[in-house]
């Protein structure tokens, strides 16, 4: 669109010197629109409409492609939305039991950033990366460190640039097979095995509706930190009142609990992020096809004007030639 405006402005400037030497009396020439590439010297007969036509063809193709992408994203969204909504009950018992302490002061923070592999999905990946960087800044201080675990290509591309030394693990191609709990639990296991953590903060985009995605951070604390917070009272003070059945020690059960919590929260987070990705892609492609439609309208007008101007020019020449012959 900017190019079309610039072209019209350029045409306005060129058009003044074009009409003055020409003996047009009867007909006011409509604003000529010489094509952008043709540097028309004064006195040329007609302008090539080929360039405008080529541009129209490519814009029409773009419109078709983006419309198709929107439909594909809509169908993928439908498929995954039911799964995400069903998994919403999974993390609620954990938050009911352990509360949510995003402001817990811990030494080893791990930020798990969930993003998409493919692009063209609006700004959700940039938002996730910005929040992750914000968390890193929030949790920086003496004796504190923050590491990243990255899921998805887009966050990797952005974070590798400036935080390369803080990245522990990168996982891509998550959505090659349809998302299921087994895959996510294996993933969670890998992360827990390879990364030392006191607190895991999972950053993802929660899906509210097709047009609204809210960046969210879920915190999973390691069993030692849970014990520490429980002893110091406050939010988790009641944890001691819970009897722990089974196992040899309470610590063992709490360890299993923390791992289970992490895998459940990851599962929900990954599904919600996938829904948000498809929703964002839908709206991005929708606005793109609308934009292409607008561009096409403007180009059609330009094309018609060019065509009519060339016809008018021919007519003028014929008529003025004929009238010159007559007398």
């Amino acid at each position, binding site marked *: 669109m900017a190019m079309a405006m610039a072209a019209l402005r350029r045409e306005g400037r060129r058009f003044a010197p074009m009409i003055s030497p020409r003996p047009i009396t009867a007909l006011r020439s409509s604003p000529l629109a010489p094509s952008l590439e043709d540097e028309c010297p004064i006195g040329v007969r007609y302008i090539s409409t080929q360039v405008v036509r080529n541009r129209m063809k490519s814009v029409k193709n773009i419109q078709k492609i983006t419309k198709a992408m929107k439909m594909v994203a809509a169908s993928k969204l439908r498929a995954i939305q039911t799964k995400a909504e069903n998994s919403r*009950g*999974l993390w609620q*018992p954990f938050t009911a039991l352990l*509360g949510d302490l*995003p402001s817990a002061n811990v030494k080893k923070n791990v930020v798990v950033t969930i993003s998409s592999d493919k692009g063209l999905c609006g700004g959700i990946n940039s938002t996730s990366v910005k929040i992750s960087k914000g968390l890193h800044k*929030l949790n920086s201080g003496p004796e504190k460190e923050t590491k990243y675990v990255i899921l998805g290509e887009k966050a990797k591309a952005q974070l590798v640039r400036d935080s390369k030394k803080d990245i522990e693990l990168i996982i891509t191609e998550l959505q090659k097979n349809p998302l299921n709990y087994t895959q996510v639990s294996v993933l969670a296991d890998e992360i827990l095995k390879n990364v030392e953590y006191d607190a895991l903060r999972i950053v993802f985009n929660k899906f509210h509706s097709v047009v609204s995605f809210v960046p969210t951070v879920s915190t999973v604390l390691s069993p030692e930190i849970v014990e520490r917070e429980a002893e110091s009272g406050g939010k988790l003070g009641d944890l001691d009142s819970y009897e722990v*059945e089974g196992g040899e020690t309470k610590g063992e059960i709490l360890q299993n*609990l923390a791992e*289970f919590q992490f895998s459940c929260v990851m599962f929900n987070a990954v599904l919600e992020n996938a829904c948000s990705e498809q929703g964002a892609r839908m709206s991005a492609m929708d606005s793109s096809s609308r934009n292409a439609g607008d561009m096409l309208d403007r180009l059609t007008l330009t094309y018609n004007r060019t065509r009519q101007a060339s016809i008018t020019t021919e007519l003028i020449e014929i008529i003025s030639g004929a009238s010159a012959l007559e007398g």
Partner: protein
Amino acid sequence: MLGRASMLLPCRSILPARARPFSTDLPAAPSADATFTEAWTKVIPNMDPPKTPLSFMQPRPPTPSSIPSKLTVNFVLPYASELATKEVDMVIVPATTGQMGVLPGHVATIAELKPGVLSVHEGSEMTKYFVSSGFVFIHANSFADIIAVEAVPLDRLDVNLVQKGLAEFTSKLSSATTDLEKAEAQIGIDVHSALNSALTG
């Protein structure tokens, strides 16, 4: 749609009972968020702080002074919420220490589950599920959260396949060399024998 909207607004009124700082009461819920949001706005003033799960949850009621008549059960699986805030009389869960019966007014407990049968008793009817494993949290306000990885109603299980699986894993255990293989085979045997006893007993 309505479900989602109501999740966003925690609008339960809180009884002036003793505060359970645990059960995401309204006063407690914003305070955790408040420290986080304050810290965030100090360090990163340009961006809105991200939301936390607390803002998406409905707060749980505090512990009542007398034992309620019904137990409220949430039974969730990764793929579905089987039972969501359903009021029942009793549930029997297969904890690692054995079958545990949970009645309203049960002491607050965290228990890990082993493969076994979960039965939900509501009045005269009883529904049985086979659960693979998971956790159960019993809160002092007679809320029970059962989180399982897999659960199937008993009538969906096939006896022949169970027997075959049991035989297969027993042979795997005898031919296992590494600790990992032995552990995997042992897990298979545990699950299948639990399935067997669930179907027969």
